[in-house]
């Protein structure tokens, strides 16, 4: 069996604001195994990026981890600060951001940016690091890597830049990669390429991936398992095939129904009534109950249960038992 690379248990992130305490992450738990891609999906503001930020320790104050544990390869990392956390970043945890244009320092060549990252974490000589930098570029599929190693970010197209970003995230060989909306800023035609690249690299190296996105299509394409988030809470967790074909949570079902499918012809798109609540105004009981067509008294009073794998955070899941 593969090892568990990342384990998040009952994680809560709080932000004190003037109107009250906002919980962008509220009692979330999931694991990611080596070589596995976990998709974290949800609407904007659902808290998916916050969980990622919490793992890598880049929460912007006053946001902070209020409760729960984060374990990386068995070790607790949620309490780490400063230098200890810095050593993990890049070396054990890599991150890919959304916008490749702004992720790269325009004044440094990509060779420089790669080399410095490697030199920071790996015991290499400069010339070795430079050779590895070229190899890294080749791995992510940039043609003519040896010549372009000294080029600047603005000399690359959007898709190429994101490949460079991925190369940077992976060059120190982390065991976990957090990809925060890696394809959202890219052309549709390029998105598929980047996803394929990410998949291949992580399978080859056995890297665990947290793939954060709002795009169900990306999840379907890339992820092994999926975590559905709603209003900061975990709504459903399970294998991609299961969740997508047989969603247990009414919200997930709604999401699936509203995803445009080529095969659906001219049928009108389904919409879920209402909108996701603001994080400082999360309803009592189950966060989804105001919009849920199946809501009952219990849903309005008691918050949905915390879940483990292959379950939905719902008192009345759509399928009572998992069909094996």
């Amino acid at each position: 069996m593969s090892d568990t690379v990342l384990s998040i248990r009952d994680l809560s992130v709080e932000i004190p604001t003037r109107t009250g305490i906002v919980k962008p992450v509220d009692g979330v738990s999931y694991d990611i195994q080596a070589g596995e891609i976990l998709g974290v999906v949800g609407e904007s503001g659902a808290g998916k990026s916050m969980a990622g930020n919490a793992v890598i320790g880049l929460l912007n104050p006053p946001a902070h981890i209020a409760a729960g544990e984060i374990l990386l390869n068995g070790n607790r990392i949620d309490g780490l600060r400063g230098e200890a956390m810095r050593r993990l970043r890049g070396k054990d945890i890599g991150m890919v951001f959304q916008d490749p244009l702004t992720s790269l320092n325009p004044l440094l060549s990509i060779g420089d940016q790669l080399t410095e990252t490697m030199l920071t974490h790996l015991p290499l000589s400069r010339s070795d690091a430079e050779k590895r930098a070229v190899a890294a570029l080749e791995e992510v599929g940039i043609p003519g890597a040896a010549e372009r190693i000294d080029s600047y970010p603005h000399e690359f197209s959007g898709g190429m830049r994101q490949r460079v970003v991925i190369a940077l995230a992976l060059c120190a060989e982390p065991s976990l990669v957090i990809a925060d909306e890696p394809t959202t800023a890219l052309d549709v035609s390029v998105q598929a390429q980047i996803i394929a690249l990410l998949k291949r690299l992580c399978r080859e190296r056995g890297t665990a991936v947290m793939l954060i996105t709002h795009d169900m299509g990306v999840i379907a394409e890339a992820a092994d398992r999926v975590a559905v988030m709603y209003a900061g809470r975990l709504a459903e967790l399970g294998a991609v095939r299961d969740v997508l074909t047989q969603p247990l949570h009414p919200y997930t079902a709604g999401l699936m129904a509203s995803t445009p499918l080529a095969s659906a012809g001219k049928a009108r798109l389904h919409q879920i009534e209402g909108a996701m609540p603001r994080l400082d105004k999360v309803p009592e009981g189950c966060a989804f109950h105001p919009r849920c067509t199946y809501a009952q008294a219990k849903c309005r009073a008691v918050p949905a249960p915390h879940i483990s794998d292959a379950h939905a955070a719902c008192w009345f899941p759509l399928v009572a038992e998992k069909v094996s």
Partner: protein
Amino acid sequence: MLAYIIRRVAQSALVLIIVGLVAFSMFRFVGDPIENMLGQERTVEDIERLREQLGLDQGFAVQYFRFLEGAVQGNFGVSYRQGRPVAEILIERAPATLELAAVSAILAVIFGIALGVFTAIRRNGFTANFIMSASLIGVSLPTFLIGILLIYVFSVELNWLPSFGRGETVQIGGWTTGLLTESGLKALILPAITLGLYQMTLIMRLVRSEMLEVLRQDYIRFARARGLKDRAINFRHALKNTMVPVITVIGLQLGAIIAFAIITETVFQWPGVGLLFINAIQFVDIPVMAAYLMLISVMFVAINLIVDMLYFFIDPRLRVDRAGGH
């Protein structure tokens, strides 16, 4: 890129021509141009010769051209007050101003950038806030007041440093320097601080605000996510990106230092071209005023041009004619 250079040079030339026009007009129409050129000791033959040379009976354009011709050759006429050729006086006094300006500029840039970076990195610390509040006063204080205050504290009360003059100077070739003697160095301290303080404050505030802006950028976040050390992030990444907009301003400020030297030189009776200019205004010594004006313009224009060109070396994005894939 070539087109840009040509345009800038043309602009600069335009500025110089206009300034030359102003200087020429001063020369020609305020007071007597013959007297401006020859001084008060002159013979009738001199006057006639000059009248022809200047083309005073000919068109405006011709006279202007002749004037420029003379200027380029270093002939700025004769000072009313001193009866000596202006060029001679300027050359004599230039080293004093240039040394003062150079030392002030170096102080201003070094401390300005250092403090700017410090207050940006430690933005919420007590020291940083204190420095920022102090800088507000620095911007509100007129330069001459700073000078006087320094004189009061260090010359009158403590008697550590001299309050006027350059101290002993050493002649090296055509240059007189005060840097090689102890009294020369002592005399340089207060004026250099006075002149540099305002610039330093400006640079500091600019560096701070630019750096704070840069530190908010995504690529800094990504650098942190890659686990780069704070020092690498602050100095290799952030500082480099901060300098791009800052360099232009610093360059322009350096030009301004030479002009602001006028004030400092007056406070400390520093024998440079600034003091010369002020005295010239008080005595309506037109030739000196015109000459100073033209020299300053050439200097400003040159500095502006250099600073613009500098951009190309710093920011790779501007080197458009380099091969790039897109």
